[in-house]
């Protein structure tokens, strides 16, 4: 059972009115006493500590503050209590202004809006600066190809591309099954289930292969770019690189941008193929179209430009994902929370930008006659 610090009020002669404290005055026992002392009305002439057991700095602080606020003298303090109270007294705190955060006034709203706009503008400026640095780094590498960090590039190709093959393959295969199966159910109503092949083939090449891959890569690699570069920023590794004369742009950002750009093109194509295989697989059972017939029909119904649409969109999406990840990583400052926030922002921005651009591409390619 926990013992609490307690108090009683002693009325003495000649208007003397004291507070008698008892029990241990330590951090574990002070909680209730503090609240009670804040509630009682002074003035008091003295505070009697003779019945007090253990004292620690929290107890000393509470006694001292009460003595200060009520103008009472402290009597009957043990050696240790006196020493602690003296220590508290030495480091007397300035009264803290307790003005809370200003309520949301119209001026406050305007100020907040202004701050937001300025921060947004700063963000755009920072991003442009980042793009500029990246272009300079790329130009330097074109002029001095020997400075290219091929080991790092190959490693990123491996991380972003090769290691994503199983998960993207499985995902695309399943997506292919879903499109073919759901498409077949609808098209059957018109007796047009043979068009399932057109649907699966064209959708996979033009849209779904590359879009789903982009989302997967943004989640897999975009986030890891941001988190890794951000952590390196926090641990001053980026600063260390700069002092050694290694450009973080060349060493960290360029390999990631190259890997993401190139690999998304390849992965997007790979995803489209797997998606069609998935479609062919399910058609074998639900539509009784033989597997190889499905594939050879694909060659007839999917125009070549559908493949090109996918292959053009892939690198653009990859570039966006790498830029968002690396840029947000480089913007990490301060603490570990910033790494988390920046990583989230990188993924959200990347996926959002990818979908916006995808909508743009859809209209664009139709307009130029690749519909």
């Amino acid at each position: 059972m926990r013992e609490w610090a307690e108090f009683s009020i002693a009325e003495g002669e000649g208007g003397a009115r004291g507070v008698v404290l008892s029990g241990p005055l330590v951090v574990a026992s002070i909680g209730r006493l503090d609240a009670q002392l804040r509630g009682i009305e002074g003035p008091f002439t003295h505070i009697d500590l003779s019945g007090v057991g253990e004292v620690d700095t929290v107890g000393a602080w509470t006694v001292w503050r009460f003595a200060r606020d009520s103008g009472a003298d402290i009597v009957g303090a043990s050696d240790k209590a006196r020493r602690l109270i003296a220590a508290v007294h030495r480091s007397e705190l300035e009264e803290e202004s307790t003005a809370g955060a200003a309520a949301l006034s119209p001026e406050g709203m305007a100020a907040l809006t202004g701050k937001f706009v300025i921060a947004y503008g700063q963000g755009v400026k920072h991003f442009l600066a980042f793009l500029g640095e990246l272009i300079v780094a790329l130009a330097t590498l074109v002029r001095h190809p020997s400075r290219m960090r091929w080991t790092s590039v190959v490693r990123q190709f491996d991380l972003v591309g090769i290691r994503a093959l199983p998960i993207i393959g499985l995902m695309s295969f399943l997506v292919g099954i879903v499109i073919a199966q759901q498409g077949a159910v609808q098209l059957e109503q018109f007796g047009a289930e043979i068009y399932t092949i057109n649907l699966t083939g064209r959708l996979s090449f033009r849209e779904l292969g590359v879009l789903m891959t982009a989302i997967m890569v943004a989640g897999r690699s975009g986030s890891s770019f941001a988190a890794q570069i951000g952590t390196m920023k926090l641990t001053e590794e980026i600063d260390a690189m700069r002092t050694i004369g290694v450009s973080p742009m060349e060493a960290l950002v360029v390999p990631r941008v190259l890997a993401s750009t190139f690999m998304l093109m390849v992965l997007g194509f790979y995803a489209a193929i797997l998606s069609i295989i998935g479609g062919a697989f399910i058609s074998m059972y639900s539509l009784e179209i033989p597997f190889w017939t499905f594939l050879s029909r694909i060659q007839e119904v999917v125009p070549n430009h559908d493949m090109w649409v996918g292959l053009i969109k892939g690198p653009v999406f990859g570039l966006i994902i790498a830029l968002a990840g690396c840029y947000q990583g480089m913007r990490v400052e301060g603490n570990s929370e910033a790494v988390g926030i920046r990583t989230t922002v990188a993924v959200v921005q990347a996926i959002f930008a990818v979908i916006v651009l995808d909508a743009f591409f859809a209209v664009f390619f139709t307009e130029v006659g690749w519909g």
Partner: protein
Amino acid sequence: MSLEHFTGDFPIVVEGLKTAFGDHVIHEGLDLSVRRGEILGVVGGSGTGKSVLMRAIIGLQPAADGRIEVLGEEIAGDHADDDIDIRARWGVLFQGGALFSTLTVAENIEVPLKEFYPEISPTLRREIARYKVMLSGLPDDAADKYPSELSGGMKKRAGLARALAMDPELLFLDEPTAGLDPIGAAAFDQLTRELQDTLGHTVFLITHDLDTLHEICDRVAVIADKRVIAVGTIPELLALDHPWIQQYFNGPRGRAAQDAQARVRAGVRAGTKAMDKPGGRGA
């Protein structure tokens, strides 16, 4: 939860401790007793397991063998989240400060208070936090700063303030003066000594700083050959004929620290110096 302070003579007792990372044995048959109310310095070459010893004592590093008793209670190394009762009674300053980076200094100090004593009102908690900030020698406005806004020395002080939040009976300091400038280091030593004089806690201090050892430690424990090879005051250690101890204290840096200490003694003998008293300064 116990309100009684530990009244035995040895708040930390380590017997036959063995710790190992896989096959790599760090300590074997290590014995150490820390007296109540002393500042015990722990020295040893890099990689001799000073920090591992501290982690074992505070229950972060499971012991492969042996017994560790802190404040009269056995520390079960493999249940790091048990012994809550004991955890409220010690404070730890980690090497890098280990402040929670998303909280301000004051909020950092409030964390253990909130955790153990939720009945303390926010006002009092805030006052305690600000008081500890002052106590650790930080300027008042440091309370509302985030760790990333503090210099290395201020981070150490903020870490100390958090370690002191609960008025611990035991204070563990892991290389408190490493990375501080000589003035900052001397001030930190002074602070450690003053706080110990005022609050009367026992200090377990890992250090490489010879000045710290001379200036504030009551006794020094030397770790070598996987165990504590000697414990005593510096003159006692110097009397031993162990090559590492001789090299450590009588090397060029050790000499310089001794000379500095001698000059201090020859000059103003302010109060009783730590070295004059062999150990125990009970409360």
